[in-house]
């Protein structure tokens, strides 16, 4: 089928982009001051030349840069992302261990923000010039303007400390030994605060976008046609205006989904969520190059994946693209 060929082409393009990203990041990270061996040695509390030499040799840091790059790239080609200097584990294992947590967090936040944003945005669009519509938009603007980490801090203080309703950090209750449904509920409870915090900002974006896009769509000629048919306003809003308004939102959502991984760094730090964002920040501070490169690679791959998914969804939503010739 045509689809298969096109997706294959996209994947090929993705490989090229990923390859460029590897090189870009590799060079970028080399520009950072600080020798990873020295940092490791520093953490050990004492050093001598022998120790540094051992570390450099062990991680191949004594090789010329192009050799290091070549080794890295050829490793990645075989899905070998190297060894984390500091965590003493293969990078792939570390990332795969943390990735589900990030995907759970960002996925939940994404779905939540998209759903609530579209609902709130449609309501606001349908209530233009009415107080209820203005209140929705004022709230959206407020969430948009509020620093994410600040909301996170405030919500911990409010919901965990003063109200004691929700756990403040972590992904599950350690030592509780939950399994099955109990574990799901436990994780769910831990998920509420970080996911909501992360979702608020993006929800604000989707709300504003949905409203603008709906108002735009409601100016279109076919809306007048629909009214001339005698269709009810609610049907027009849903079937004609919203459906058309969703197209630009799909594009935006595809872009934002990738950015959420970045936003997760702050959320994961405040809520101690054991995800890839936090891992990245730690890896950066420790100059854990291989780990950092690996995380960059995976987050870029995620972004590309989201872009491809976005294109596919867009193709499904817009017949002009799917069946166009």
């Amino acid at each position: 089928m045509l689809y298969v060929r096109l997706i294959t082409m996209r994947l090929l393009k993705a490989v090229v982009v990923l390859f460029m990203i590897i090189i870009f990041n590799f060079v970028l990270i080399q520009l950072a001051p600080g020798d990873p061996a020295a940092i490791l040695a520093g953490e050990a509390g004492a050093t001598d030349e022998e120790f540094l030499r051992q570390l450099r040799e062990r991680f191949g840091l004594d090789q010329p840069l192009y050799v290091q790059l070549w080794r890295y790239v050829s490793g990645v080609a075989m899905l070998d992302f190297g060894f984390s200097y500091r965590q003493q584990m293969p990078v792939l294992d570390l990332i795969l261990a943390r990735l589900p947590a990030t995907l759970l967090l960002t996925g939940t936040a994404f779905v939540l923000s998209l759903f609530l944003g579209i609902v709130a945005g449609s309501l606001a669009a349908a209530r233009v010039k009415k107080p209820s519509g203005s209140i929705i938009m004022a709230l959206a603007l407020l969430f948009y303007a509020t620093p994410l980490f600040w909301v996170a801090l405030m919500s911990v203080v409010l919901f965990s400390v003063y109200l004691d309703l929700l756990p403040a950090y972590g992904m599950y209750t350690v030592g509780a030994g939950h399994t099955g449904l109990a574990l799901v509920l436990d994780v769910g409870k831990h998920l509420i605060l970080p996911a909501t915090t992360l979702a608020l900002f993006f929800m604000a974006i989707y709300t504003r976008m949905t409203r603008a896009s709906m108002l735009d769509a409601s100016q279109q000629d076919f809306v007048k046609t629909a009214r001339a048919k005698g269709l009810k306003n609610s049907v027009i809003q849903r079937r004609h205006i919203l459906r058309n308004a969703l197209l630009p939102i799909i594009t935006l959502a595809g872009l934002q989904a990738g950015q959420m991984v970045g936003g997760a760094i702050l959320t994961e730090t405040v809520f101690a969520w054991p995800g890839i964002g936090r891992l990245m920040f730690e890896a950066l501070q420790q100059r854990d190059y291989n780990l950092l490169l690996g995380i960059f690679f995976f987050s870029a791959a995620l972004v590309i994946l989201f872009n491809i998914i976005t294109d596919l969804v867009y193709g499904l939503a817009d017949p002009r693209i799917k069946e166009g010739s």
Partner: protein
Amino acid sequence: MKTPLALAIAAAALSVSTVHADEPRHGGTIDTIIQPEPPGLVLGMIQNAPTRTVAGNIYEGLLRYTTDLEPMPQLATDWEVSEDGRTWTFHLRDDVSWHDGEPFTAEDVVFSADVFHRELNPSARAVLQHIESIEAVDDYTVEFTLDEPFGPFLISFEAGTFTMIPKHLYEGTDFRDNEHNNHPIGTGPFKFDSWDRGTVIQLVRNDDYYEDDLPYLDGINWHIIPDGASRAVAYENGTVDVLPYGTVENFDIPRLAELDNTCMTEAGHEYFSPFAMLWMNNREGPTADKRFRQAVMHAMDREFARDVLWNGLGNVPLGAFGSNARFQNPDLEPYDHDPERARELLDEMGYDGEEVRLLPLPYGETWTRWAEAVQQNLREVGIEVRTEATDVGGWNQRLGDWDYDLAFTYLFQYGDPALGISRTYLSTNIERGSPWNNVEGYENERVDELFNEAATAFPDEEREALYHEVQEILQEDVPVGWLLELGFPTLYRCDVQDLVTSGVGVNDGFKDTWLDR
């Protein structure tokens, strides 16, 4: 004459551990925090603080030390030294087995010290260079022969420095790729159970531990929570019972200390005696002038820093030797907070307002605030300061390259000046690339001589005289700024009993701990 020291020491150890009238009780798991997450748990291969704290319960050394840094028996029951101070003989317990059931013998001691640590462990190498040979006399006796008497020898057997590593699992392998690194095997009171990266490390009771009745706890959960505020919440809502040093921000400590059923101790750090210092680049710029360095000492309000930033914990040091250090000279002239005097000194040297760069220590909020306070102190006596923020990587690099004017750091004193203090001032210790040696570039032949003689002088009275003299010189030259002997508090629920029972108690104390619930 061989001196059996052990008996007296054992008595001292008893006095530390039996503070409470109640009989210790078995049972319960303790929840605490480890911050940051350690890179691995094999002591000796990795020696950073979090590794020591967790692995100190899995691995053991030959000796422990009291909070006064006197040795106590551990894997060695007793020991003696030859009259010339060069041969030390240790007698080992014969009832010890590794967590995998294999017996612990003198061969393990020789392997650990002579092979494993010699290859991997730089702090052990500092001691090993004074050792001529290590031999197993029989299964339970080991003999160390030194090339000449070495003052701090006996204080080097703490678990973090000379950890005992199982020879049968490591010999002949690539130590760093050994499969047991992910499941460490030691002789300690707790066994490694699991490590959920980013979340928790769990240890369980070693039911076959050789000391009767010990340990009392069923296990330890080390929670990993990367945010300071979240860690405080974890203590408040009862998830964890113990907050080791460095897990919550200093600003939070007074508030937490006032919570119900909360006790605080500063004990358990005596062996390390962390000492905060301000590196001052002796090579170039205004800091190369002794009067400038003296002015900095007078300009800084160290009491303010202690009271506001460190909750009044810790000591403003007199000079280069901390109050816990052996051989401190009590007759030195202290540097008081005296901005007037600082300005006079600056005038005298003709300071022209040249900018100096200040590197804070990238170890968290308190250190950042401290740098801000010092920056402000210095500005107020007319010194132009620009703070240059770095992360750990940048900080290491800048110090290693001597690319700084003023820089914060803190160093452990390791109980003996020859281990923890002289390294900062010996000109032979000037070498690019490390942030832990004589980074300031201070060179004074007399100081070198005095430190070197004192390290190998025998007995202690001789060492004391030498060390007193060196302190007087340093006091005048101010090679570095002496900021604060840090007091690291541990917060815990008061019903957690016998939490700290040694001079490295934060690392090996859970052995004796029990829950009074």
